[in-house]
């Protein structure tokens, strides 16, 4: 059966529509903040260009087809790893490769191409999923504990490199993707539990290695409660590992500034919001990163609870349709990839919303498709393109169970389909 790349099946078009709607919501927010600040619409036009580029990229990926890309999964993974190396070298040696790796906010996250700053860690997300899914398509690779070492290693190397930049948010985001893919692939629960246990035991060690500002990002989740701040002030020694009394005293001005702002922006939006381009936090500059990490707060400010639920609904569409695509396909690789894409997009969205509402530590996570940022947008569209591509290759005629020959078409498909395990 021949599928043209422009022919989107229903699930694919739903995902694409949700992604594009989210993008438009983001554009509206960026436009509103820039309009209020009296700036030229630099970011709005940039984001529009990124969106166009993303759509083109999506078309290209659909044209190629996920399977042809998947065959080069390791190569892609390797290249993404290579791209991660220059920022690390720059961080260690403070050598900028002739301006190729600029320092922004004391981090080395970008590779500066003409007219476009590329974040290799964003590309890594997709490459990592591809590599992982490609590896885990064989049963023997995930049912044994030894087999799990490879995926752990595949995660650990890029995680270390990204942590060097430093980019704690992206690093931590790898973990749910890894676990969900392992889980979906069918890894034994006790193996996963063991890995999780090791991770938990390592947490205090990691905590002591965090930078002060990174720690304060985590501690502010607890510190948003006034009672807790009073406790810190009353017993500074006891809570020394978490925060200093001065941080507690200066909560609203210091480490809590963003969170207090985002909560006030969200809360004051109420159910219906202030309207597009209206409201204190849109008109004045009280909320930093409002087109970026805190775009969700601005959505809530402008459109209230309804706006937030709408955005949440869009991610819900991506999730449900994405999981449905994973259900429908019989290929282990495609399944794992689909699950991975959904996990990546949705966990990031949930984490970002958690940050905005004070449920999660603020780690600088962006809201996929909505936040400003070229690399992130391209990556997310790439991931979604892969998802759509998977849905395109779905055998429409089969409602429940795939034909075996559909599986056998591909030469290196595993003998036993994953679902019959």
């Amino acid at each position, binding site marked *: 059966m021949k599928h043209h790349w422009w022919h989107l099946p229903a699930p694919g078009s739903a995902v694409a529509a949700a992604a594009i709607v989210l993008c438009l919501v983001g554009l509206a927010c960026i436009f509103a903040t820039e309009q209020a600040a009296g700036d030229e619409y630099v970011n709005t036009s940039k984001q529009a260009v990124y969106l166009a580029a993303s759509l083109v990229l999506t078309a290209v990926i659909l044209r190629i087809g996920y399977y042809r890309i998947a065959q080069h999964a390791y190569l892609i993974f390797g290249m993404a790893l290579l791209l991660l190396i220059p920022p690390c070298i720059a961080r260690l040696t403070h050598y900028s490769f002739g301006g190729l790796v600029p320092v922004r906010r004391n981090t080395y996250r970008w590779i500066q191409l003409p007219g476009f700053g590329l974040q290799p860690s964003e590309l890594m997300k997709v490459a990592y999923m591809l590599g992982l899914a490609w590896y885990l398509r064989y049963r023997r690779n995930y049912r044994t504990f030894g087999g799990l070492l490879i995926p752990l290693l595949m995660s650990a190397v890029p995680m270390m490199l990204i942590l060097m930049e430093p980019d704690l948010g992206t690093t931590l985001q790898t973990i749910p993707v890894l676990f969900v893919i392992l*889980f979906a692939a069918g890894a034994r629960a006790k193996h996963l539990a063991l890995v999780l246990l090791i991770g938990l035991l390592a947490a205090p060690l990691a905590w002591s290695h965090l930078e002060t500002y990174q720690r304060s990002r985590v501690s502010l989740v607890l510190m948003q409660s006034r009672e807790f701040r009073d406790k810190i002030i009353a017993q500074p020694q006891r809570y020394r590992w978490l925060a200093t009394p001065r941080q507690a005293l200066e909560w609203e001005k210091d480490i809590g500034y963003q969170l207090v702002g985002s909560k006030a922006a969200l809360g004051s939006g109420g*159910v219906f919001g202030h309207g597009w381009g209206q409201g204190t936090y849109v008109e*004045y500059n009280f909320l930093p990163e409002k087109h970026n990490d805190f775009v969700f707060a601005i959505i*809530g400010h402008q459109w209230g*609870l309804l706006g937030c639920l709408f955005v949440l609904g869009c991610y819900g569409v991506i999730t449900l349709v994405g999981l449905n695509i994973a259900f429908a396909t019989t290929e282990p690789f495609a399944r794992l990839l689909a699950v991975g894409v959904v996990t990546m997009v949705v966990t990031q969205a*949930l984490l970002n919303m958690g940050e905005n509402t004070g449920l999660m530590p603020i780690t600088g996570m962006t809201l996929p498709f909505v936040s400003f940022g070229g690399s992130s947008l391209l990556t997310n569209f790439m991931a979604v393109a892969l998802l759509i591509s998977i849905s395109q290759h779905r055998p429409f005629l089969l409602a429940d169970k795939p034909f075996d020959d559909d599986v056998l078409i591909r030469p290196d498909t595993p003998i036993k389909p994953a679902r019959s395990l």
Partner: protein
Amino acid sequence: MFETRLKILACVLMICAAVVVGRLIELQVVNADVYRRKADQVLLKPAERLPCVRGRILDRTGFVLASDDPDWKVCIDYDVLAMDSESQEKRADSLHKRAASYARQNRYGPGKRRQDVQSLLEADIKRMWEDLARLAGKPQFELRRQAEDICQRVAAVRQVVAARRGFDDTVREEEQPHALIEGLDDQQHIAARLAMEPYPWVSVRSGVHRTYHNAVSLAHVLGRVARVSAGDIENDPDAEQPLRKLLADDMVGRSGVEYLAERDLRGTRGVLLKNRNDEVLERTPAQDGQDARLTIRLDLQDRLYAELERSLQAFPSLASGGAVVVLDIPTRELLALVSYPSYDPNRFTEDYATLRADMRHMPLRFRAVANSYAPGSIVKPLACLAALATGRVTLETTFYCDGVYPRDKSKRCWEVAGLGTRKAHGEQRAEDAIAHSCNVYMYYIGDLLGVDGLTAFFEMVGFGRKGGSGTGLLEDARGINPTRAWLEGRRPVFPNDARNFVIGGGEVSATPVQVVNLVAAYASRVFQPVTLLKRADHSPEWRLPGTDAQWHAIRRGLYRVVNDPNGTAHDYAYIQPSTGYALCGKTGSATTRPWPISYRVNYREHDGRQAFAIVAAGDMGQAMEEFHALHPDIEVTPRDAEVFERWPQVDSLHGDEHAHAWFAGFLQPLDNLRQPDWSRPPRIAFAVLAEFGGSGGRAAGPIAQRVAGAILDVLGPNLDPDAPSRRIARGD
């Protein structure tokens, strides 16, 4: 299994989403009001403080002596003011912020980019300084230096606040405008408004300045206000009250009553809370400071100042200044506190350099309170009382005066010492000795009393006591009571000391206020600190030892000083009995060496050349200070300096030595037979001091006569301190 696991995954994600939705409902529905308020708060402008008027200072009769008068001032936002003195980075940051806000408001026309706005803004700020200089009539650099001073003050405030809080952060002063040009009248105000209209960071606001009314005679008493210093803020007793505490722009009492009554005079600010749309959310009105009421009568003060001035200028003396103090004996309220010469408090800043440099007259010295002089013979009655009360002598004990003290031939009676002719007082009782101011009698009782016996009584009348007289003024000097303990750290105690102290010489010293209070004690046998401010409560009083008969003898002696033809002040201070009063009192001549008025400081120039400088200074410390101000980079020690010039430069007109002339006395009511009516206690005591006036009788006596006349004239025949004032202009 795959499906199961996907379902589990879907469930987990859904639970997460549900948590987020729950949180959103909590934020946006349940607690929406809380956050709405918070969002409104973000929009609040920093609370504006409404200025309060400093309390007035009134005289006893209600005449206004000092008040805050309204004027206008040109204020500039701190960030613009600080652009000169701050780092390049901070300056760029301030500019950037302002430009962004102006671009948003389309102040420089719609559609302007921030970068363009920023360069326009910079040009505007430059132009503002030019306009300000034109408005103030001062060169730009002077204004900019003023701005720097303000920034330094704010930095000091920030330091103090940081020390108190335990961490450094911006202070409110950094978010507020500060006055750069002050004291504009209504017309200048309009000109300023017009000139400053294009600059949104400049505001013309109403302000106040301290004005003193008819107060040359009271300049020292009233004192002055000055801009707060970091020390003031650190020691501010109201630091805990945000609306009362001192801020960097405040004026605070520095000296005189302005300092003394600071807590009363200072008002409580109001608060004005507005949001960014200039809607008033909260307004607490300011409470003006309370008035401080002096016990001094302006009419008496003015009159006595004029009398003192006329006397000191007419009298052929070397007097460099003087003081007159009038005291209401029953209440110990000061009715006049004159120091001559004085200055115009409204022109203090302009005249300061001249006033300070005048070392001969020292117009800035608050002589009545801050300078202590040897009291001379005025302490003789106290010495007699000490001898009588402790039983060393009786009222009938006599000592024979043949002009020379037989135990020490160098100690002579004053008339012998003064004129060289041998004229003896003969047999002297205590009363006679007071009337004749007989030194020989005093030497005898001085030997009987010893240093300890004398200083115990000096202590009783407040000599050398901290707070001195009780005025509470910052300037209040303690005087010196040379007790054995005091002497021990300084020099050995000699047998001659008691003989010196008993005639008010040696180290003994007292301020004019202490002296007038001593005389009030003679008149009432009670010691009580004086008061300068009208208060409900009175200081505690101490009844001095001695029997009625002994006190009576003292008073009779004081009566005879003036009213007996042989009394030392009879020729100079006698007033007619027809007034209904007799002047009783005691003269005093406190011998002294000329005072240094300038110093010569020898120093080496940077090129090694030997050089010297003459600086006007009253003592070595001041000389060092003045020299340092002149040549800040050259190190000198007191060894390099010597007295260059002293005052008086000529020999004394009367006698061998220079002396400060004293007269201190009280007005004793007379009966119908024009004899003193001892049953009626005297009401008014006063003291006169003429610095370098010479002999007490000759120099201070005539002034005392005039002072007594003026007191009778102003207070009326009943000597009522609250007699209605004849002044027409009244404050309330």
